[in-house]
Each structure stands twice: as C-alpha cells, then as structure tokens.
C-alpha cells in the first residue's frame, strides 16, 4: 500500500520539502479557507475522539501507564471540549472586526481581517501526547491552515495511533502526520513554514526558534519551568493538600508542565506531610515514568547526597516497571539538582522560609515558570502574589485548573515560553490579523503633499490633534 511504502523510506530533507510543497499547493487552492472545510475537519476530530476513545486509552496506557480516568478526562474530554468550543465560535472568530477610525484618516472605515497563515508545523510532547498534539491542530484548522503534525516519538503508541486515525478521519490533502525522532524533526525544521507551534522543553525550544529565524517564521513555544506552590497558614489544609496532590500526582504522576514542582511554606507547617500520609494513592491510579532516561534522571535527583536524607515520604522506586512512588522531601538545599531543573516527576520538595513574603523573592529570582500557585486566605498576600509574581498563569487556592478555562490564554513568559493558545487564542495564534482600510477619494488630498506651506502645516497639526476647533481655525487662516 502507498502508505506503507512511504514508511520504509527515510523522511529526509527532500521528503520534507516535497511535503511542504504539496501542502502549499493544497493551501493555495483555497481548500482550507472555507467555513465548511474547517467545520468538517473539526467534526472529524470530534468523531475520531468519540469513536476511538478506547484505542486512545490503550495507547496512553502503553506509552505512559496512564490511568483510564486521566486519559479520558485530561486528554479525550479536553480535546472534545476544544473542538466543540471552536465549532460553536468559529463563525464569529472568522468575521472581520470593525474598528473605529478617527479624524486622522477621515473619511474612512477600517477592519481587522483574520486570515490563515498558510502551512503550519505542530510539534507535540510525550506527556499528554493526544491532547498536546490535537489541541493546537484544532486552532490551526479553525484558522484555515494546512497542517503537519509531528507527534513525540517518546510516546510511540499514541504517535502511531494519531498517524492512523488522522489519515482516516481528516482531509489528507491538507492535514498530515510525520512520525519520527530527531532526524525527521530536523528535516521538518529546515523547511519554510508559516508558523511553528512547539510544546516541549527550553533546550529544544531554542533549536526550534533558531531554525524558524532562518525563514522569519513566527513561533509559539509552550515550554515549562518550576511551578511553585506557596502555602500559607490559616487555610483549610485538607482541601489545599488534596488540590495539590491531584495537581501533582493526579497529573501523569507529576510529568506535566503545570504540575506543582515544589512547595514553599513557613516552618510551622510540618503537618503538611502528615496530610499526604493520610491520602494514600493506589498504584494503578498513577502513570509510570515514561522511559528509562527520565527514570534515571529522576533517581539521580533523589539520590544526590545533599538531598537523599531529606525524603520524608515515599522514595520507593521500581526500575523494571519504571515506577517511582509519590515522594516528598523537606528542606532541600536551594543549590541541589532537584531545585535547579524542572522535576517533571513524582518528587515534591518542600522549602521552608521564615516569612511567607520571602517566597516571592525565591520565585522571582529564578526563571519565570509556566504557572505559580498560592494557597492563602490573606487578601493582601493574594494581591501581592498576583501583582508581583510573573508566570504564564496564576491560580489562587488551587493548582492547574486554569488549563481548562477556554477564555484564558495558556502560555508561558520568559523561559516558560512565547505566545499562548486555547479557545480563541488558538485561532489567533494561527491567524494573521490583517488591517484593511477603506478610504474615500474625497478628503485631504492636497494638504498632505508638497508643495509644503505653513497653511498646510497648521491644518495638519490641527487634524493630527483631532480637535474640530483647531481644524476650523486652521482652515480659516488663524492658529
């Protein structure tokens, strides 16, 4: 079969370049621009997710040992919601936005037209491989683009499933999947795209942006960081702990970009650990570590001398099953490995400070994270946190929930990323906002142009100043 032949040949620069050329042809034919096409493709994604939910769950279990509920909730249901929201809003998003014009361009009318960028590349991650591949695709399709999706090879079952399903359900003249690892990604990155959307880490993010720079291709980079949780006293500790627990270990066992990375609290809150003890997690409810590289990385963080004695809960690991138990560490040194890279795993260090305000300095002294969380009832502390901690997104008294709010832009700042998406922000991320001005032939023809005179200057000053009186004065020779 043609599809299988293609698989045997290596996907090199030549293949990448002819793929792009093919999609450019499809885009130029106008196929992807109509409302009907965009709507049909979004419905295709929806049907695909509905009809193959069990296959998706199976692939995620194979790749990550992900519990069924997490797969259904955080991947399938969220993707479905994304499709539905886009379908509901698409017509409105596609409409040009009329804008007011002022005296400076009178008489005129103007609008901002959203147009597709063209042919876009989406490179996805391994931890939520279904959602993080298709959520950006929803935006790209809604905005009328042709798309190449490169799923992560570190989640191979999902990658293969996506290649198969998208081939069946989507218009393959304009939507394609390229599977593979570094060589294939490199071949893709050499091409000229109209946008590149990358989810992953900062090291590769830099490579993507450098490749994009050669072609002046704009990028969205959804990266990560160390998302801190500041915990105050005088709060409902049980609820706070539950929310922290589910946001950490309930999210792919901590392998999530917005999972709580570490906790900062004041010394009087040692009880925090006992609450964790009281909330045992069954092992089948937890994802395993994705592969042995990451397993080794995480055990190295745990076994570092400065840190190994600080484990107060958990610490068990099983290399054969790539499982690490939920682990809490107390008072790790700030210069330890575990405090200097994104953990992306089930280890939760707790730092203690004398006064909670110090936590803001700690957070701000590091790279800006993708998310930051605070649990407090103190209004002043809340506002201080919101106004002074810079991160992609903030949540007060919970963790990770902002991900599900369509009306909020989801993205990082500084090291945690460039650009944002979700809801209309996805549509915008894959659109060009084109300014269109309609001028009449009547108006100011003469005064703008030479020969230049003082009278013209006066009138121009008045027009740019926007004051009717000024204009009248200038017209009638006074200033």
């Amino acid at each position, binding site marked *: 079969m043609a599809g299988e032949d293609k698989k045997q040949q290596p996907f090199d620069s030549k293949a990448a370049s002819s793929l792009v050329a093919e999609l450019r042809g499809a885009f130029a034919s106008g196929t992807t621009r109509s409302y009907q096409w965009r709507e049909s493709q979004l419905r295709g994604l929806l049907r695909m997710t509905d009809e193959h939910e069990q296959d998706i769950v199976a692939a995620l279990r194979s790749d990550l040992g992900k519990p069924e509920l997490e797969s259904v909730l955080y991947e399938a*249901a969220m993707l479905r919601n994304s499709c539905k929201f886009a379908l509901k809003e698409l017509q409105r998003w596609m409409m040009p936005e009329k804008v007011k014009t002022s005296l400076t361009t009178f008489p005129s009318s103007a609008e901002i037209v959203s147009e597709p960028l063209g042919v876009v590349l989406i490179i996805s991650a391994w931890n939520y491989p279904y959602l993080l591949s298709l959520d950006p695709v929803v935006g790209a399709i809604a905005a009328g683009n042709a798309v190449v999706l490169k799923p992560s090879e570190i989640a191979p079952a999902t990658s293969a499933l996506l290649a198969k399903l998208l081939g069946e359900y989507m218009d393959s003249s304009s939507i394609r999947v390229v599977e593979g690892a570094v060589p294939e990604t490199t071949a893709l990155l050499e091409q000229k795209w109209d946008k590149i959307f990358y989810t992953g880490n900062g090291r590769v993010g830099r490579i993507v942006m450098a490749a994009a720079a050669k072609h002046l291709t704009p990028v969205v980079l959804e990266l990560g960081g160390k998302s801190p949780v500041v915990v105050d006293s005088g709060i409902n500790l049980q609820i706070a702990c539950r929310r922290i627990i589910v946001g950490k270990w309930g999210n792919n066992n901590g392998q999530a970009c917005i999972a709580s990375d570490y906790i900062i609290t004041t010394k009087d809150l040692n009880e925090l650990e006992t609450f964790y003890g009281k909330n045992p997690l069954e092992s089948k409810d937890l994802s395993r570590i994705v592969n042995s590289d990451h397993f080794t990385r995480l055990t190295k963080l745990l076994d570092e001398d400065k840190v190994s004695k600080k484990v107060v809960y958990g610490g068990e690991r099983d290399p054969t099953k790539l499982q690490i138990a939920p682990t809490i560490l107390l008072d790790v040194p700030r210069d330890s490995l575990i405090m200097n890279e994104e953990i992306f795993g089930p280890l939760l260090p707790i730092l203690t400070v004398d006064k909670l305000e110090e936590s803001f300095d700690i957070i701000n002294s590091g790279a800006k994270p993708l998310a930051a969380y605070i649990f407090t009832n103190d209004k002043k502390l809340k506002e201080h946190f919101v106004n002074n901690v810079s991160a992609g997104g903030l949540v007060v008294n919970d963790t990770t929930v902002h991900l599900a709010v369509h009306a909020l832009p989801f993205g990082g700042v500084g090291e945690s990323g460039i650009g944002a998406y979700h809801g209309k922000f996805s549509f915008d991320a894959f659109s060009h906002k084109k300014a269109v001005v309609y001028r009449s032939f009547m108006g100011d023809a003469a005064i703008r142009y030479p020969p230049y005179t003082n009278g013209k200057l006066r009138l121009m000053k008045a027009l740019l100043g926007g004051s009717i009186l000024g204009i009248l004065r200038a017209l009638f020779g006074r200033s």
Partner: protein
Amino acid sequence: METRGDFEVQLEGMREYYRGGNTRGASWRKSQLRGLGRLLEEREAEMNAALEFDLGKHPVESYRDEIGSLIKSVNYALGCLKGWMSAEKAKLPLAAVLTTAEIIPEPLGLVLIISSWNFPFGLSLEPLIGALAAGNVVVLKPSEVAPRCSSLLANVLPAYLDPKAVKVVEGGPTISEQLIQQKWDKILFTGSARVGRMVMAAAANHLTPVTLELGGKCPAVLDSLSNSWVREVAVQRILGSKFSACAGQACIAIDYVLVETKFSSTLLELMKVWISKMLGENPRESRSMARIVNKNHFFRLKTLLEDPNVKASIVYGGSMDENSLFIEPTILLDPPLESGLMQDEIFGPLLPIITLKKIEDSINFINSRPKPLAIYVFTHNDSLRKRMVAETSSGSVTFNDAMVQYVADTLPFGGIGESGMGNYHGKFSFDTFSHHKAVVRRSFLVDFWFRFPPWNDHKLQLFRSMYLFDYLGVLLTVLGLKKSKQD
C-alpha cells in the same frame, strides 16, 4: 566607548530598577508619556533640523510623518492607559462556582528597541511609547545611519524621561551585534529582513520574543477610475506615497504600480503633470523631496538604473547628483521583471509602472512574490476589492489611498512572512510589550469531590457530564439515576 562589562553592569542596574517596582504604577508611566509629549513640543525645531541634516526632509514632511504622528500617539496612549492596564475578566462556565478568572497585563521587563534611519524619530519613539505605557525599562538603539537624529535622541531623552529606566545606546553594527547577544525580555526591531533574521536568531538563544518590522515591495494597483477628478486624486496619493515619503525610502511607500496597459499612457501623463505641480521645478531646493540618506544607498540605487534594460525603460527623470545625494523623481515603464529594480525593495525615488492585460492579473502578480508590508488598491470595483482582501496576503490593505494606515491608532501595524512578525501602534504597542497573565481565583468552599483519586467509574461518569456542562447529567449521576457508559 563603554566596555562590554560596563554595559552589562548598566543592564543589570536597569533590571534591578525594574524589579524594584519603580515602573509599574500608572503615575510613573503617565509621567514618561507626558515627558515624551513635552519633548515633542519643545524640541520640534531641533528635531526638524536633525531630519533636515540627515535626510534633507522638509519640516512639514517631518511633522506629518514623525512629530505630529508621535504627538497623536502619546495623547492616545495617555487617554487609554487606564483601560489598557486594567485586568480583563474572562468568562467562566456555570460549573466554575465561586471562581473568578481574569487576564492581567504585566510588563515584560527589560526591552530592546532597534530603530531605523528613515523615520529616525518615529520608529524610535512610537515603540518607546508602547514599552513605557506597558511599564518596562527600555534600551533604545537608534540608527547610526541618521547620526544627527541619533545623537539628539541620546542627548534629550534623559532630560525628559526617567534615566534609570530609559537608556539610549548609539553605535553601528558592532554595537547592535553586542546588544542582541544580551538577554532581553523583548526585542522590537525595525529594519531589513536580512538583519531581522540575525536578531531573531540571537533572540532564540534566550527565548526572547521578538516583533520584527521589516519591508518588502508594496504594490499599488490602479484600476480604471470613473472620472478625471478621481484619477487626479489617485495620482496625487500615489506620487505622494512615493516621492514625498522620505523620497521613497519608507517601508510602506509605494514600491511599484500595476495598471492596465490601455491606461498606462494616461497615467504617465498625469504623473508628469502632478510631479511638477507637487514637487516644483527644483525639488531639491524646495526640499519637497528628501535626499538619499548616504553614499551606500545612493550607489545602490544608481546601480539599479545602470542595467541597460532598466535604463531603457526610464520615461521620466533619471538624473542623479552624487554631491547632494539627490535623485530626481524617476518613472520607468515596464522595466524587466528579473532586474534588481523589480526583485529587491527599491527604497528610493524610482517608480516602475508595470502594465497588465487585465487588472485582475495583479492578484497573481502580487501572490507570486514575497508577502509585502502593505498593498494599495485604487478602485471602485467592489468585486475586485473583495478579491484583493480574500486572495492576497500582506501586513495591511488600503483602498484608494496609501500609507494612511500608519496613523490609525486602532489598526495593528506589522508585516507577515518576509515583511515581518508581530505588530504595534495604539493598544497593539501596549500589548506587544506586555505579558497577558491568566489568573484564576478559587474558593475553599466548593469542590467537586470526584476530582480526586481513588478513581472509579462513578467519578468518571460525573466528569463526562461535567465536561459537557451537562448539569442535569451531573445531577442524575449523583442521584444514581444515570449509569456510566461502562455499565
């Protein structure tokens, strides 16, 4: 000359100042904007003198394109600042009981603005307005190719703005190269695509977001127009948007004109008449046209005309004076499309007229070339208008005029593809220098118990209903009246 070490110390000082929260409050931002307003009012004469020295611009042209436009932008920003700074509430579904969500704009931190030489004040200060309104600290690098303007900025800005928050760094390519290697929270660059690539590549090392305002060949499509009066207005607007815009050295100047063959001779005659009306017999003396900025560009333009096939297509003008760096308004009829003149952005007072059989052919003509910063279309034809908007891609499209999009505060000003990425002007300036931070506030009071493990089918069913915002379904499941899919 500062050493790299000194310079890095200065930058760290600026970051400290920013971290101290000094630039966050509305009153600081307003004071900076008012400072700029006063600068524009008080230093108009010096700015005009600098523009005349560097570019031979007439004060009216300087006011129209730079000073006046900046005054407008400062006032607009002052008027809108409160609204721009305020958080925007985000709509939440009913299920999100006792939860609020909003988007809060915050400054990015330490930003770099690299400006260009053709509108040295406008392209330095227009971005600066946005950066300051958004609460950042700023390093501004004006172009050394307009040296008088650059040094005026370096001298006066500290007197009108907070010197701890705004620094001007003068210098040439070496300084620019050093600057872009630093870690910035944002870079806004105006200039060529070649240098734009270098800026973005350097920014990639630090994951610094960039706005690149580049250029391209902006076409003017001239359809048949109904009467002679309208034709004359169109011709004046076309000529003005070439020869009167820094002698064509402008990213949004008309680069070339597309017209149907049968109208080309009428067009040519009209142009000749109006050039002499607008620019006079001696445009150099009257300063109704700027001069070429320096010898480099002068020779670049001279070389474009030396191609014999190009030279043969000159139908008006063509004379050049190296001493005064002046090139008179020049029109060419159908120069070869593979010539340098028709391949590269002209950026000078040479106006090619390209003839087509049908005006609709202009769409393919434009689409077979890199996406320009602007497309200008002079037409009464509604269907041509619609096709132009739908079938071409550019930073902007303007009908029946040119360049005016620059002064519209409500329109994003920026390119696409080779002509750039990102945009600014008006609120877009504020946004381009801001991070839009998502903030969700939850109550301790309400939670959905099924959020937490241990997991079971019952909880799964509840979630299925929740995500569909099927409140009835949730109720029924809780009451045990609705079974999960698995049952």
